């Protein structure tokens, strides 16, 4: 853990131990570990002299941060109004069934995390599914399997 501690401290030092850089520090940690480990948050709290609860307030406020380990690939299904009308919920259901997880969970093999989003702002190409910041337009239930296969193959 000591090596990890140094790593986290390095991120904090990058922003010259400033409190206002909390979000940037958390972003760096999230990128490194793919989630925010408890220990890391405790180190940040100690080094910046910010109460742990305030850091958690920030970490739980933003959807970009996760307190639980996320899968290798993050699948985001849009459930905004336009995507909803065009069958977003059904696509989500298909993902849930195929991965055998609920929205907001990570599959057992640690490959995929499934999340929903209210709107991505590209309603014209809905229903939209985003995997690792790659947009997939006009998704149908049939395309779900091929998307998953594509990312499994990549590894």
């Amino acid at each position, binding site marked *: 853990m000591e090596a990890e501690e140094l790593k986290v401290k390095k991120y904090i030092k990058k922003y010259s131990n400033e409190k206002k850089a909390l979000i940037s520090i958390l972003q760096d940690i999230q990128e490194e570990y793919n989630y925010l480990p408890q220990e890391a948050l405790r180190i940040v709290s100690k080094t910046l002299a910010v*109460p742990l*609860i305030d850091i*958690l307030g920030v970490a*739980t*406020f933003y959807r970009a941060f996760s*307190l639980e380990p996320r899968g290798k690939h993050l699948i985001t299904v849009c459930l905004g109004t336009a995507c909803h009308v065009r069958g977003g919920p059904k696509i989500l259901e298909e993902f849930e069934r195929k991965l055998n997880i609920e929205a907001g969970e990570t599959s057992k093999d640690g490959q995929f995390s499934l999340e929903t989003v209210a709107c991505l702002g590209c309603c014209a190409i809905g229903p939209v599914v985003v995997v690792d910041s790659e947009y997939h337009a006009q998704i149908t239930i049939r395309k779900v399997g091929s998307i998953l296969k594509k990312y499994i193959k990549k590894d």
Partner: protein
Amino acid sequence: MITLKINGLEVRAEEGQTILEVAKFYGLEIPTLCYNEGLSRYGGCRLCLVEIGEEPKTKLVSSCTYPAEESLVVRTDTKRVIEARKMMIELMLSVAPNSKIIQDLASKFGVKQVRFKIRNEECILCGLCVRMCAEQMDGRAIGFQNRGYKRKISTPFDIRSEECRLCGGCIYICPACQLRCQGPQADTAVCNACLTMDPTCLDFYDDLQCWMYDAGRCGTCVREKPEGSNNKKQAQKSKRKEKKA
């Protein structure tokens, strides 16, 4: 010194005072819930709403956070204020119907129904405990987490916080999770027992044997009944009927 008008009354206030503080100083009652003299202002419960400005450009602001301004016109009991206040009580009641403080508020301000789904969350997110912990107890063991409908007050990682000294300050100040309302209809959404108890206990008993003694007396026995309360009206009606007959 600033001069402003509250309910048509010209009042003087010091720089930096809030409307609520000025009103309190002049003995004007504004209900509050998330306000506490020893803690910072929060403006979360919206019970202390007042109407400021002159017609037709008036707006509702929370008096506990709004600073007194020169020649500001404030009204504390307009129709709009009363309706907004009732709505806030109704909303809070739907979240924490077991709270005695909120039930009492409902009785006091005549909230007789809850049109929202009863959620029994027993937390109205007033933030009193969070501020109590941080400001008075210097603890910072609890705080707000998550966002929107998932918002909650908890310790870091939902486990016992190292900063918590088990002082109990948060429970002491909580308006929702403290003493339950012990009224005869406490298990219903709106108890209103204090409001509807008529005739009052004193009409039943010669000496006061308040069965709510331990739970905090309701006060109906000593409260003056409003002019033309239900009972009187009914009595008058029946009398009239008798006369007609």
